[in-house]
């Protein structure tokens, strides 16, 4: 018996709908667990989906499946097999979403199925309600595994909503702000001035207006003059090679401590970066605030945070300039839109992270297109899409997302605009999860990569 059916049955038997003042569920005043239901609910308050019988649509979710997709390591890093979610309905409309989670694919897939009992039989049009069912109803309110599972399901629900209403999702969110599409940037690396100049020419020829690089070294909690100088010189070299008119950002990837980040940020101010990303680990907003208070370089972070709640402290404290939620972790379209809305109220821009598979990247475009505070969309990939084109063609019938004149064009099909070939999925069977790549300092201690 599914959990929802069990609750309904219990309610019918009076176990969860005792008269006010009566103890529920357990006749004894002593409970095995304090978390057990000790609430009093009114008799006329029907539980769960039945309450919405008269006000919901006729559409019902009949099945939810999850697919692990392992690609060749030349195409996608071994730590992130794609995790796709497919939701099926009684009227034949289906929706796709993505729950890819770096280093935790099996856990994300299992968590999607853990949520199945909350989803099957529900009305997929109630996307806000189902988001709350999964988020609040899961008790722990977040974490990357639950966040990714919710993300995959939520994206699939929005896909269904859009298909039912025959509209792209960004139109349902009030967009597009700019029908030409949303600005994007590619990842890049260049280690010499000549390489940087060559990259500049290639980037401009592709019509791309922004790139992102990484720091050259791992960093410890305090650092030597030599390492700090190397980091700064690397960025100076990039600016010289790329020229003044090509935007570039640098991803610190949470390698420095706030102490070291503050020093580097002070040095690179004259380079006018598009932004400095994850300048230190994200959990401690006050520590990050100490690092950024002496810098005018725009500070970006947020790819590891879950739900709109995860961003509140950063926003309220005015620590950051740009937020980077990942639609495959933050909680799908619903949560990414909420983060965007909260950021807009504080003049914070959005540059969503997307370093996983194709559904999440395209889903992100929809929210971007409806956000007045949108800045740029990350899509993990280099100027040349390489082998990804073949995989995208195989899975979806069109090549990998590419910018045109610096922007990702908007999908035109209803919903998210993607449909995955299940036949093609069979060609990329799930081969388990590999851990996120590790890095170590020269003394063997674990480093933040």
């Amino acid at each position, binding site marked *: 018996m599914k959990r929802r059916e069990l609750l309904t049955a219990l309610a019918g038997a009076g176990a969860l709908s005792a008269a006010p003042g009566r103890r529920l569920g357990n006749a004894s005043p002593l409970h095995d667990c304090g978390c057990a239901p000790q609430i009093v609910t009114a008799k006329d308050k029907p539980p769960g989906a039945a309450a919405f019988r008269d006000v919901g*649509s006729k559409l019902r979710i009949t099945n939810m499946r999850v697919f692990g997709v392992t690609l060749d390591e030349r195409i996608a890093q071994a730590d992130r097999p794609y995790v796709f979610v497919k939701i099926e309905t009684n009227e034949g409309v289906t929706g796709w979403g993505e729950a890819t989670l770096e280093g935790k694919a099996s856990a994300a897939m299992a968590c999607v199925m853990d949520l199945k009992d909350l989803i099957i039989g529900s009305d997929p049009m109630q996307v806000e309600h189902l988001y709350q069912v999964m988020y609040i109803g899961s008790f722990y309110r977040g974490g990357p595994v639950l966040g990714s599972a919710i993300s995959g399901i939520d994206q699939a629900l929005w896909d269904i909503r859009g298909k039912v209403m025959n509209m792209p999702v960004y139109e349902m969110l009030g967009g597009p702000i700019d029908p030409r599409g949303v600005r994007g940037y590619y990842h890049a690396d260049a280690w010499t001035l000549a390489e940087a100049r060559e990259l500049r020419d290639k980037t401009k020829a592709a019509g791309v207006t922004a790139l992102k690089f990484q720091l050259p070294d791992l960093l410890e909690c305090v650092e030597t003059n030599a390492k700090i100088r190397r980091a700064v010189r690397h960025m100076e070299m990039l600016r010289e090679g790329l020229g003044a008119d090509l935007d570039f950002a640098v991803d610190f990837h949470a390698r420095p401590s706030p102490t070291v980040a503050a020093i580097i940020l002070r040095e690179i101010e004259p380079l006018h970066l598009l932004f400095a990303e994850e300048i230190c680990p994200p959990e401690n907003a006050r520590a990050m605030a100490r690092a950024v208070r002496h810098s005018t370089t725009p500070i970006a972070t947020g790819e590891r945070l879950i739900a709109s709640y995860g961003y509140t402290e950063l926003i309220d404290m005015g620590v950051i300039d740009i937020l980077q939620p990942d639609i495959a972790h933050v909680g799908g379209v619903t949560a990414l839109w909420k983060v965007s809305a*909260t950021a807009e109220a504080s003049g914070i821009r959005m540059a969503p992270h997307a370093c996983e598979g194709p559904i999440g990247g395209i889903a992100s475009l929809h929210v971007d297109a409806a956000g007045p505070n949108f800045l740029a969309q990350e899509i993990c990939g280099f100027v040349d899409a390489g082998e990804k084109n073949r995989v995208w063609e195989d899975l979806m019938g069109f090549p990998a997302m590419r910018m045109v004149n610096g922007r990702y*064009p908007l999908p035109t099909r209803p919903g998210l605009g993607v449909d995955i070939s299940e036949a093609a999925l069979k060609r990329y069977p799930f081969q388990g999860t590999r851990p996120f790549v590790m890095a170590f300092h020269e003394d063997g201690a674990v480093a933040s990569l």
Partner: protein
Amino acid sequence: MRTNSRKLPGAWSAVFAPPAAEDHPLKIAEFRAWRVKEPVSSRRYTVVRLRSQGGISGYGEGGPALAGEIVAARAAAMDRRATESEFIRSALRRTPALEAAVNNAMLDLVSRAKDVPIYRYLGGPVRYKARLLGHLEGSTAAESTPSLERAKRQGIQSFTMAAPLRDAMIPLRAYVDLVRKRFADMQALAGPSAEWVLDGAGAMTPGDAASVAVALERSHPIWFDEPTGVITQDALAKIVDESVMPIGLGRNITDIASFQSLLASGSVNIVRPDLGLNSLMKLKRVATLAETHYVGIAPFHNGGPIGSMAGIHLNASLIHAYAQQIPVPASDRDAAMRAEITPGLKESGDKGFFALVNRPGLGFEVNEKALDAWSEERI
């Protein structure tokens, strides 16, 4: 920076492209507005009707607006798609009453075109019935009685009560006693099942409001609404630091950043943006801010019945929505006029809640002849 102009790759063009702007069935082809005034209370509001190229109509209500503002709003909305709510939010930000009216009309139009209730278009329902808060007319118990009696007949169980104004000659202690007495009188009048919101209407000083909040906190009004008009962090700290009375604020605020400021400083316990000054799409953003601070939203509303119903739809799509305020006329003439404008709608509930209606858009038809009859001006 000059970039090379590039075209979409072949296989992409069917999937990714800028939306075609011309000849879309949801393109706004007709704009009409009424400036409406109720005969006895003189309550004023603006009703906008949009019609799409495909022939679907949608209605939205905002607060009072000037004729010139309506003309400017029409220029902004015409030929836009009815889905472009973010464009309208930006274009009409200086005229919030029209931002609300036009954007809500667009939402009604699109929902009707897609054959779904507005609450479903917004991602709901998250509840199957919406709690009503009756906004009573009158500033004394006697004056409020007709409004209260009507509200009770309408099945409403939660009400606002106007706090008395303080005359400069009244000592603070006497004033606090006066507020306490009015609270007790109204409680006695409505009976034990009634719940109350104390409405300060922004008329008290922060110091007076703090004293009232402390005096009444153990009487447990649902909240103390707009205790002062001094919406600064320091002024509000006087109230929130001295009592545990929940504070409602926001009926005069039209910029979302001000709500963020109130929430970040912990100065508000329930946000109260006015439905007449903020569209549903804008209020969704305010609600999202409130949600992350564990604060509820209960939009203020002292406008017409179209606005009341829009608020119900919003309430049904927001997890942190507590109640929708609806004005309860003291006068039979005002009540009749509201019913005439929206013949298929009853602004009433059962045991304090409005049962959601599963019909497209707002869920009722609007009587344009009645709008013509009751409007000060038709534009």
